[in-house]
């Protein structure tokens, strides 16, 4: 009993002397906001990458397809970690069920995004403007320096007269189109 009194006395003494102070409520609200934001960003990125994987499957020759899959898996893990760390609705359920719920939600939203011309528009934009990180994902996997239909022979393998089926003049830069 003396030991427990000792604990109580030491704790109270540290509080009364101001050695230990309460953290302000706003800090906890901020922490929750950061976690919610992190979950939101991870969700948006997971949706973007999953719909991109669908887009890359549709368009042949994308070289960064594997990286997109790895990134999407990493984002799923981040999302699961954030949700199970803080939100009882997730940690009170088996992790497998939580992952299935996240996967289905992301897949459904991705399907909706996939049906829009978002990735086609981004691809067209990055072909005209170099956007760091994003551009490599939308480059044709065939290694062409010029734009042409993705999946057609490399520029070095073809005659000066483009025979790869470019939608535009490859010397002036036609745009890649989805097959």
């Amino acid at each position: 009993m003396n030991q427990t009194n000792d604990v109580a006395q030491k704790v109270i003494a540290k509080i009364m002397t101001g050695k230990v102070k309460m953290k302000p409520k706003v800090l906890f609200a901020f922490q929750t906001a950061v976690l919610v934001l992190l979950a939101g960003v991870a969700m948006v990125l997971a949706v973007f990458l999953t719909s991109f994987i669908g887009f890359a499957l549709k368009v042949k020759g994308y070289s960064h397809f594997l990286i997109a899959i790895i990134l999407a898996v990493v984002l799923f893990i981040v999302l699961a970690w954030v949700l199970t760390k803080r939100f009882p609705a997730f940690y009170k359920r088996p992790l497998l069920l939580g992952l299935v719920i996240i996967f289905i939600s992301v897949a459904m939203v991705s399907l909706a995004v996939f049906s829009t011309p978002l990735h086609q528009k981004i691809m067209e934009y990055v072909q005209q403007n170099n956007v760091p990180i994003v551009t490599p994902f939308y480059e044709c996997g065939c290694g062409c320096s010029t734009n042409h239909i993705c999946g057609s022979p490399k520029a070095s393998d073809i005659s000066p007269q483009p025979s790869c089926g470019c939608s535009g003049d490859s010397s002036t830069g036609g745009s890649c189109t989805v097959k």
Partner: protein
Amino acid sequence: MEPEEFSDKTDEQLAYLTQRGRVEAFGFLIEKYQDKILRYVRRMVQGADEPNDIAQNVFLKAFENIQGFNINLRFSPWIYRIAHNETVNYLKKKKPLPLFDFDVFLPHYNAGKEEIENEVEKKQQVLRVKSFLSELNFKHREVLLLYYFQDLSYQEIAEVLKIPIATVGVRIKRAKEAIKEIVSARGGSQP
């Protein structure tokens, strides 16, 4: 408000008063929980030299983070969560603990229902568990400790450990099986 006036307050009301700056209310909470927390810490870090220091840290952390406590929830799982984190941090310094437990991954059907034990049965179980607690691994020891010695429900244990309720049931069942194995390995001699 005099300290004796705190006696009719619930833990959550005392936590609320602490949030409003009433340090005496927190003193009352320490008095209520110090024996329980010290007992929990001692059993979790058996053989450690500093259970008092760990218990002290639990209350200091509780005070620091009291503004993060939601008064609409129960106070006891919240403070046991802090005690759990402190003991885990202490044990991690001694030897590495598993980062991930696979029993939280898959669903366990019908494992989340608490066994109905009468008072006599429960007392017998407590005596039985007490003798073998030190021989169980960390996760089995902890669930038995919280269930039989700290009187938390499966729901509250799930809240403390942040694991599914069914996993609590599975761990308690496996811990009891582990005790049976220890007993049979010793030729069936029970204390």
